[in-house]
Structures are given as structure tokens and as C-alpha cells.
């Protein structure tokens, strides 16, 4: 039995191909039913997002890989050649590691983005509902969630802001701390302003006002954000009361001049004011940033902050990879350690079967034997096999209480050919 993962992601396949692989949400439960109905598949889970479609199963090792390919082919009607070119198949340790990397958002387009963990949890819930999970995958997924949590708290892969809107919101928090008491003013109802405002409103702004040349459009945005639309003429007085001003009008000139800002700053008596100028051409005079307690960030400034955040996340991702690597090894090791008892039984059966077979082969050459001689030979065979088995079995028993037993199990299974390869098979 093995854990296998088959599928394609944004790195291995272009969008046209990923589109074909997507399993629609309302078909997911049925698809899992179809999957676990196939031969050699014991448990199964399907993760299908815009960046990846991956099938995770627990099943009979060599057959299951082919079954998965076949399943995805009938599911998506993709050409076999395309599947072979764009899909990957991971087994055991590699499969576990891949799953952990996905859950930790290390395999995402933007490292550390938070959605993927939710999507994995969703896939888990769906598979659970469809009856696709039993002890092995259930346990593996729980482990994946725990590893994702650990990576999130112990590394900074999700910490630094990586988008312009995110960088603006992060900077606002660096100035005002808790945004719950800040007044946010949105000047101009452009698309960028909307995104930035949503980021800030998500943190719970004190109040949101929208001032737009066209009152109608301003009112729409205000409704959307749960704020208040205000007439353009009242801009000067609204500015005085605002802590965070998101500026993004289509005007080709400065809407907030240095003189305006100076007057506002004086009236605010040192209370900081933060201009987020995402308009191009800029709507806030850049010299405003030289005034005391006034901070101006234009789109390039925010881009620089976001790019630095990207670099930081990439650095942190290295730490995260180490954690994932360790955790995947530990998991496989633990899985193998569960196989100690079955391995002992298999080893004993295997050796005694081998002994009997060899004994039968040579028995004829000895001719007639007295019953005592016959019995002595039988005893000799059993005693020899038991002697050979003694140390490996003792070692297995000892190891079952210690970490690292998985490696011993794997080694012995391979050395004695317990998984269908090796001496017995070669001889027959």
C-alpha cells in the first residue's frame, strides 16, 4: 500500500490544460465516489482550484498510479500525451511532502497566501462527506493542517505585505496601530481605491467616507463599503477629519497641494495623516511628505514595500521548506513504524515458506530416511530459520518503541523482498 498524489499545478501545466482538469464543485462528491470505486484505491481526496487539480489516494502501489492517470483522463477527456507531459505522480514521502507544501502555501503562486489552506480544508470536508477518507488519509490531512499552522507561526512566509493594497493597509497599521478608530476618506471612486479601501475596511475602520466628483458613483462605492458619500464641495472640511486618505481620481493634476496639506496638518495639531496616492498621474503633491506628521505613499513607494515583502517571504520560505522536509520524513517514518507487527509476521512467514520450499527440493536426493531422521531434518530446518530470524525480529521489536523504526521496517522489507520483489520472486 502506498500514498500517491497525481495531478497538475500552475508550474507544470498552462491554464488551458488546468481548465480541463478542474472538477466542478457540485461534481466533487460524485467524482470521489467514482475514484474510490476503482480497483486498488482505498481512500481518495480531490483538490481542485484554479491553480491546481490534484488527486491524493491511499492504495495498492503499482496499480494505483495507472488507475489515477486513467481516472483523470476519463474525468477531463484530456489527451494521454498531454496528461503525461503536464502531470506529476508522487509516491509516499514525495506525496506527503507535496501535500504539506501545498497546505503551507509553499507551492502557491504567491508564497504564503492564505486561501490555499482553506481550499485544502474544503477538499478534506468534501472527501469526508463522500466517504473517501479512512484512517490513513484522514490522519495525513490532519497532520498537514498541523504542519501548515506550525509553518505559519514559526516562519514569516505569510507576514510581509506583497500587494499594493496590502502594503497600504500594513503601513496604515504601522502609523495608527489599531485602525478601529481611524477615519478613512476615499477620494475618487476608481478600482484601485476600492481594493485598497477593502483591505483597510477589512481591519475594521472607524468610519469610511467617499468623496467623488460624480456623487452618484461615490454613493455606489460608499454603499458597497458601508460608508458615507459626501459632496465634492465639502472636501476641505472632510480632509481635516480624516486619518487615512486613499486618493485615486482621474484628474491630471494635484488635488491635494502642499498648501492644502500644510493647512490641514496645522489644524490636526500633530495627529498623523496618511495619504495613499494610487493615482497616475499623482493627485497628491509629493512634497507633502516633507511636512511634519504627514505621510504620503505613492504607487511606486507601495510597490517597493510590496517587493521587499516578496523577498522577505522568499527568504522565510527556505525555513518553511526545512520544516516541511523534516515533517514529511517524520510522517513517513511514523507510518512505517505502524508496520512493525505486520512486518514481523510477514518476515517469519516468508522465511519459513522459503525453508520449506528448499527442503522439499533437496529432500528427494536423500533417499529413504527413518522417521527419527526425517524429524531431525525438519527440526534442523525450523531451527536454522529461527536463528536467521532472531536478530532482525529482535531489532524490529526493539525499534517499535523508538523513532526511526520506519527506516528499519523499510530496509528489512526491501532486504528480504517482502513487498513482492527479491529472492522469492526471482526464483519462481
Amino acid at each position: 500500500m502506498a500514498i500517491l498524489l497525481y495531478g497538475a499545478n500552475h508550474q507544470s501545466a498552462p491554464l488551458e490544460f488546468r481548465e480541463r482538469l478542474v472538477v466542478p464543485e457540485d461534481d466533487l462528491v460524485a467524482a470521489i465516489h467514482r475514484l474510490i470505486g476503482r480497483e486498488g484505491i482505498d481512500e481518495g481526496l480531490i483538490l481542485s482550484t484554479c491553480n491546481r487539480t490534484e488527486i491524493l489516494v491511499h492504495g495498492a502501489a503499482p496499480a494505483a498510479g495507472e488507475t489515477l492517470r486513467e481516472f483523470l483522463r476519463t474525468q477531463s477527456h484530456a489527451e494521454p500525451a498531454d496528461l503525461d507531459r503536464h502531470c506529476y505522480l508522487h509516491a509516499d514521502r514525495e506525496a506527503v511532502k507535496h501535500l504539506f507544501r501545498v497546505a503551507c502555501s509553499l507551492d502557491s503562486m504567491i508564497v504564503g497566501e492564505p486561501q490555499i489552506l482553506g481550499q485544502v480544508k474544503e477538499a478534506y470536508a468534501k472527501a469526508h462527506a463522500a466517504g473517501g477518507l479512512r484512517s490513513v488519509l484522514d490522519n495525513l490531512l490532519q497532520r498537514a493542517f498541523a504542519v501548515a499552522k506550525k509553518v505559519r507561526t514559526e516562519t514569516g512566509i505569510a507576514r510581509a505585505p506583497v500587494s499594493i493594497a496590502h502594503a497600504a493597509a500594513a503601513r496604515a497599521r504601522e502609523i495608527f496601530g489599531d485602525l478601529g478608530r481611524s477615519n478613512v476618506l476615499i477620494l475618487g471612486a476608481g478600482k484601485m481605491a476600492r481594493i485598497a479601501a477593502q483591505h483597510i475596511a477589512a481591519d475594521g475602520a472607524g468610519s469610511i467616507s467617499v468623496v467623488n466628483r460624480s456623487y452618484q458613483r461615490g454613493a455606489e462605492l460608499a454603499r458597497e463599503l458601508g460608508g458615507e458619500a459626501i459632496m465634492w464641495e465639502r472636501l476641505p472640511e472632510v480632509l481635516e477629519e480624516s486619518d487615512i486618505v486613499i486618493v485615486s481620481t482621474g484628474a491630471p493634476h494635484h488635488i491635494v497641494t502642499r498648501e492644502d496639506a500644510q493647512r490641514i496638518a496645522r489644524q490636526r495639531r500633530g495627529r498623523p495623516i496618511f495619504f495613499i496616492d494610487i493615482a497616475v498621474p499623482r493627485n497628491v503633491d509629493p512634497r507633502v511628505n516633507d511636512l511634519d506628521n504627514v505621510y504620503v505613499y505613492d504607487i511606486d513607494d507601495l510597490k517597493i514595500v510590496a517587493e521587499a515583502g516578496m523577498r522577505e517571504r522568499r527568504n522565510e520560505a527556505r525555513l518553511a521548506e526545512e520544516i516541511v522536509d523534516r515533517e514529511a520524513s517524520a510522517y513517513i517514518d511514523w507510518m512505517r513504524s505502524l508496520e512493525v507487527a505486520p512486518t514481523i509476521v510477514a518476515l517469519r512467514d516468508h522465511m519459513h515458506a522459503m525453508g520449506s520450499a528448499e527442503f522439499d527440493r533437496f529432500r528427494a536426493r536423500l533417499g529413504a530416511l527413518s522417521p527419527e531422521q526425517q524429524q531431525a531434518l525438519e527440526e534442523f530446518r525450523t531451527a536454522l530459520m529461527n536463528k536467521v530470524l532472531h536478530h532482525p525480529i529482535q531489532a524490529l521489536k526493539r525499534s517499535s518503541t523508538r523513532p526511526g523504526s520506519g527506516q528499519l521496517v523499510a530496509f528489512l522489507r526491501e532486504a528480504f523482498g517482502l513487498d513482492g520483489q527479491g529472492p522469492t520472486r526471482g526464483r519462481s
Partner: protein
Amino acid sequence: MQAALVLMRAALVIYAAGFVTALAAVLREGTRAARWTPRLAAAGALFHTAGMLSLGWGLQRCPLGTLPEVLAALAWVAVLIYLFVWWRYRVEVLHLVILPLAMIVLIISKILPDEMIPVGPTMQQSLLRIHLGAIIFGVGALFVTFAASLVYLVVDRALKAKRPARYFRTLPSLAGCDRMGRLSLLFAFPLLTFGIVTGAVVNDAKYGTPWAWQANETLAILAWLLLAVVVVARIGWGWRGRKPALLTLVGFGLVFLRMLGV
């Protein structure tokens, strides 16, 4: 006396270790060193307390008789106030300012000559103690005001210079610094005022005049006036931000100079 000296030295070494862990946490992000800083500071404060007690026991009097003793007490109170503020508000960056300040004060207290502050009759002595107590707690709280103002200016510069987010991670928000600076000043200022008034009463009893126009007294009154302006500006005129922070730094500088030249 010997025991007190050893305990104080131990406190100094532990504070230094705490400062090193705080520095390590800033220079290399993600280290767990930062978690040790408050624990080390608390351990240092424990030794410091034992040192103060043992000093008082050895001298058989309140250990506020000489300038070095007063300074040792000031460093002790400053660390205790910092520990309280840390426990209450979890502002990590305070370590970086308060611990070295406390260390400097402790080291200076070792260097300065052990001259007794002249005292007269018993009434004066208890008044002197009240005066010193108020001043010590006032200046101890002012350490926090100083730290908050300094950090405010650092954060302000970083925001203007548009530094990446990583830079701000160990720093409190601008508004947080401002609030901390205001609150600690409102705590420190009445104590300092009371300290100066009682000081004048002591002077009056000693020299027959409340105000002798000596250099250090003038320094004290200048510092007090400056801080009074900040308090009025903050409460009365609603000032915030850079200006009060800058004025506070100057005011603290004057207070610090005055402390070294009682």
C-alpha cells in the same frame, strides 16, 4: 556592604545580558532571544532589590544618603516601572532604551564619589526622603516617556524614508508611541513638580532661602518648565506627534544632567 556591591554588580551583568538578547532580537529577526529579555530584566531587578535591601541593612539607614545611592535607587525604580509597562502593554522595544539607561545610571553611581548629601535635623531628613522619593519615581517614569518619544521619532523617520515592513516589526505603531509618551509624562510630571516643591522646602530649611540660584537648581527649573510646556501643549492644546516628542527629548536631557549633579 560587600554583599550589596556583589548583588548590584550581578544585577548590572544580568541587565547587560537582557540588553544583548533584545539587541539580538532586533538584528536577527525570528530569534527567540526576545522572550528572554523581560525575564532577564526581572531577574536583574530581583538582584537589584536584594542589593538595595542589603545596602540599607549594612548602613543601618535608608539607602538614599549619597548621590550614588540615589542613582542606584533611580535605576532600580526605572527598571521596575519598565517591567510594569511591559507587563501591562507589551511594548517590546522599551527594553532597548530603558535597560542601557538603567545600566548607565548604575555605572555612574559606581564612579561618583560617595559623599553624603548634607542633612540637618530629623524633620528635614524625612522631608528630604519624600523629596528624593518623588523625584526618583518621577524620573523613573520619565525614562519611559523618553523611550516612547525616541521611538516615536525613529518610527516617524522610517515612515518618511518608506522602509520595508520588516523594519517596523519590532516597533510599536506611531500612535502607540504617542499614547505611551503622553500617559507616562502625565504620571511623571506631578511627581516631579511635587519633588521640586519639597526640594525648595528642604532648601529653605537648610539655607534659609527656597531658591539659591545655583546652576543645578536652574537646570532643574528649566527642565521642569520645558516639560510643563509639553504637558500643557498635550492636554490643553491637543498637541501630538513630532513636536512634543522632540521637546520631551530635550527636557529629559536636562533632567538627566541635573540628576548627575545633585
